[in-house]
């Protein structure tokens, strides 16, 4: 199932399938290891406009909401 990072649930895992943005955006994310094909785990979301915390390539990263909405993940069904 496809979901963006905002819609994923806490501690859900998946694989990034697309980054919906321009080159600058894609480069910025990619240089930190957030790229198509990368395994990703959502650690926690935040209320009042705070960021989403994810884990990619053994690194925890805080990603702002606007950016999180543009990161599309193929989510593993629980089980």
């Amino acid at each position: 199932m496809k979901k963006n990072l905002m819609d994923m649930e806490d501690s859900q895992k998946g694989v990034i399938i697309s980054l919906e943005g321009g080159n600058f955006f894609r480069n910025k994310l990619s240089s930190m290891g957030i790229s198509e094909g990368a395994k990703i785990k959502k650690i926690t979301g935040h209320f009042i406009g705070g960021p989403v915390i994810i884990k990619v390539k053994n690194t925890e990263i805080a990603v702002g909401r606007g950016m999180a909405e543009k990161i599309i993940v193929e989510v593993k069904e629980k089980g």
Partner: protein
Amino acid sequence: MRKILLMGNPNVGKSAVFSRLTGVNVIASNYPGTTVEFTKGYMFIEGEKVEVIDVPGVYGIKAASRAEEVALNMLEEGDIILNIVDSTKLERNLNLTLSLIKTGKPMLIVLNMWDEIKHRGIKIDRDAFEKILGVPAVSVCALTGEGINVLHGRVNESAVSSFDGGKEDRWKEIGKIIEKVQTLSHRHHTLMETLGDASVNPYTGFPIALLTGFVSFKIIRFIGEGLIGNFFEPLFEKLWLPLIMKLSALIGVETLAGKIIVGKLIDGEVDFVQSMGLLTTGLFVPIAMVLPYVFAFYLILSFLEDSGYLPRLGILLDGFMHKIGLHGLAIIPMILGLGCNVPAALSTRILETRRERFIAATLMAIAVPCMAQIAMIVGLAGKFGAGALALIFGTLFAVWLILGVLQNLLIKGDSPEIFVEIPPYRLPYFNALLKKVLMRIRWFLSEALPFVMAGVLVVNFLYALGIISFIGKIFRPVITGVMGLPEEAAAALVIGFLRKDVAVGMLAPLGLSMKQLVIASVALTMYFPCVATFAVLIKELGWKDMLLSTAVMIVSTVFVSGLLNIIL
């Protein structure tokens, strides 16, 4: 002279390696963006003196912030690149490594934090790694110094890499390398990791933040007050005072030398706060009143930095910081500013846009008092009880908040969102922590003592020449009319340019009421940064923005102190 660049992703320990190689001490912390400027040092390789440059961290070879720009401009000039890599995050780090390889410069890879991989269930085949990339790879632990000798001995083996990744997707390329050199074994969450996640989770994070803040505050007060009351005050009163009295009798109270060195006597006695002599107030204020708090603050700050808590606090407050046109990481200049505004002004470089840097620098300079000033305010206004202190710092916080919201509304543009790597929690390494605190204390003393002395001297001359009363008369409408302060408070405002701690001390002899002291303390914080901060801000913001920022400071000072004068 050959130049060796230390390059790598943020927070991989470049500064720690740099200190080990050159013996030059630089501040290293556990969060990305500690180094915002390059630092130079020297070392000898087989008798040859070479320059070593600690470069701010970058993720790729395109700049995303001022600090990254600084780093990438350096790249051209280097003869050898020591690519520092966090061994626990080898895959992520290799992106930059491959980009650096493409520059065609001789390289050596430093696998830092080698000691940590074992208990993280990671195995790296160093020899295979060397073979694939065709450059030497040395494993070290910069924090303890392990492996640094080997590194030093192999710098000359640096080679231009023969690696050719072809045209494939970068991360696929890296995936192939990782497959060959790294094996992971499953392991459970460590306590540190669980704690790390809990402090960024909104439900557990806010209570943790409150608790951390409360405990930090208690410890700083306990150490600060304890050192002053039990050590420094007795030291000055029992040991220094008799010496000064003898000296005073020797050179005479009314001579010029007496006035400058000992200062004026209050009721026939030396008063360390009010006498304004070089060897009385000039020593007592920085050492007995300010230093204990500065020490306590930096002890706590360094602990929070090295543990990895600071960026987590930023993440937690991110949503809130958006309301003032900043994102969570801007909390770092604010917290550093509580120690000293100078490094705080520099640290605004971790922010991406000119808009953010302007807002952050202005807010920090206006509403964040440095520890030297805080200590003096606590010393003076504390006599009126906790209420007076709450009023002063509460007002400053309100100013910070309101000015932030206003700037966010009035300044064109948007601020980018937070996008930051969260460092793992680490138990601070005691020796490194201690070294860092001592470094900051030494820096404080070498900055503060000359400026305090200069301030004390200038006060004496300005009084003697009648300049203070002249300025007081000119600004009487504002100082007395709007702020409700006596004309003599002008002297403190003048000296505030040089040192804010001396300036607050100058309020002592004026016999101010609680209300007046609150207004004067708030005004002294807000109206203008001290000269050292001012110089850095001009460099960071440019003249035009700094002029604008200064206008904001002066206007809001008059407005806020006028308002306080009416409502209190």
